[in-house]
């Protein structure tokens, strides 16, 4: 089994009309044994920027700590929040620093940039950025997620429709992957509010 499949994960972010949504599964496993069913993969960097980290959980935790550290210092020095594009460049740089001994993670970054335009991107484990206008996926359920999102995505969805679409895409995809599932976490972010929901799916 590959090191990226050790803990199992599913992450997806999708763009809507002046909003975005980011969702993950809730399973934490050790190969085929399920250890936790409430694992948080997505964290808030600031009110308009979220990052999800798929892959090896220990690397995801360490990388998350390093990113929070860098962002807090940035906030103190520059007296402002980081723009999503800037944060994505920072993630890319931090990952490439470990080019020959990488973090076994694939991050998904989603945020609202200036003038409330949604921004999503993912990188590979050594920092190659992939920007997308519609959706980005990561994790062991990645291939299924690509299929489900491609089929269900429509441009310019309002927050309610985006929530429905992303939830359905996530739950359908994790059902095809034995290493991810046990429900889902989804965040829908608009310029005015952040809504967090827990999804109930097949608990297996």
């Amino acid at each position, binding site marked *: 089994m590959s090191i990226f499949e050790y803990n199992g994960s599913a992450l997806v972010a999708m763009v809507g009309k002046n909003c975005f949504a980011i969702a993950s599964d809730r399973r934490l496993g050790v190969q085929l044994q399920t250890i936790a069913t409430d694992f948080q993969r997505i964290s808030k960097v600031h009110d308009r920027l979220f990052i999800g980290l798929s892959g090896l959980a220990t690397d995801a935790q360490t990388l998350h700590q390093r990113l929070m550290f860098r962002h807090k210092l940035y906030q103190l*020095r*520059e007296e402002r929040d980081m*723009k999503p*594009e*800037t944060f994505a*460049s*920072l993630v890319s*740089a931090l990952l490439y620093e470990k080019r020959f001994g990488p973090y076994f993670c694939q991050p998904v970054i989603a945020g609202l940039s200036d003038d409330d335009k949604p921004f999503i991107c993912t990188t590979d484990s050594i920092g190659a950025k992939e920007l997308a206008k519609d959706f980005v996926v990561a994790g062991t359920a990645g291939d299924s997620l690509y299929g489900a999102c491609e089929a269900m995505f429509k441009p310019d969805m309002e927050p309610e429709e985006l929530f429905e679409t992303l939830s359905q895409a996530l739950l359908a995809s994790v059902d095809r992957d034995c290493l991810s599932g046990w429900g889902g976490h989804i965040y829908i972010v608009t310029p005015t509010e952040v809504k967090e929901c827990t999804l109930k799916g097949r608990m297996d």
Partner: protein
Amino acid sequence: MGDSQYSFSLTTFSPSGKLVQIEHALTAVGSGQTSLGIKASNGVVIATEKKLPSILVDEASVQKIQSLTPNIGVVYSGMGPDFRVLVRKSRKQAEQYHMLYKEQIPVTQLVRETAAVMQEFTQSGGVRPFGVSLLVAGYDDKGPQLYQVDPSGSYFSWKASAMGKNVSNAKTFLEKRYTDDVELEDAIHTAILTLKEGFEGQISGKNIEIATIGPKRIFKVLTPAEIDDYLAEVE
């Protein structure tokens, strides 16, 4: 003065609480050629005298005003070689920021890092402080900004400031003529008049340097021909 016994080592405070080497560095700055900067409502202008030691010097090769990034520039009073070293370090810091964040460095951040370098040289062994004060002019998302950085590493934001030989006359002149809503073109005229105040000899596009940064956020050093045009307007 009892202080002179403590003036040899940079890392030793004198009994009066001063670091005498920094005082001497400021003296070096004070005997340098006059430079000044004015922050307008829609840009910043910086200017300096460019008195060369002989008419045989190729004045086009002397560049006292330098850009640090496309939207930040700097001028100095004091020792030219020290200025070149600082410009080199600052440019590198600005580029490192850009390489990491893919974003232009904000003016305050670049000033802070340059000041930190200057401070390092007041607290390390075997080095001396930089014999320059810098005037950093930039235009970023926070608008036009003008900062002065001293050899000690302290920095201040100014609406208008001068440094070097003629500093007190120049500052008095600027205080009288400065208004908060001055526009860039007027600021350039004021800068020229301020330089003229203490200028020995005939002022021309070849013996002063002027640079501006406007709402388009591009730092530009004026050519001698452009300076001559402004001088004609001022007459």
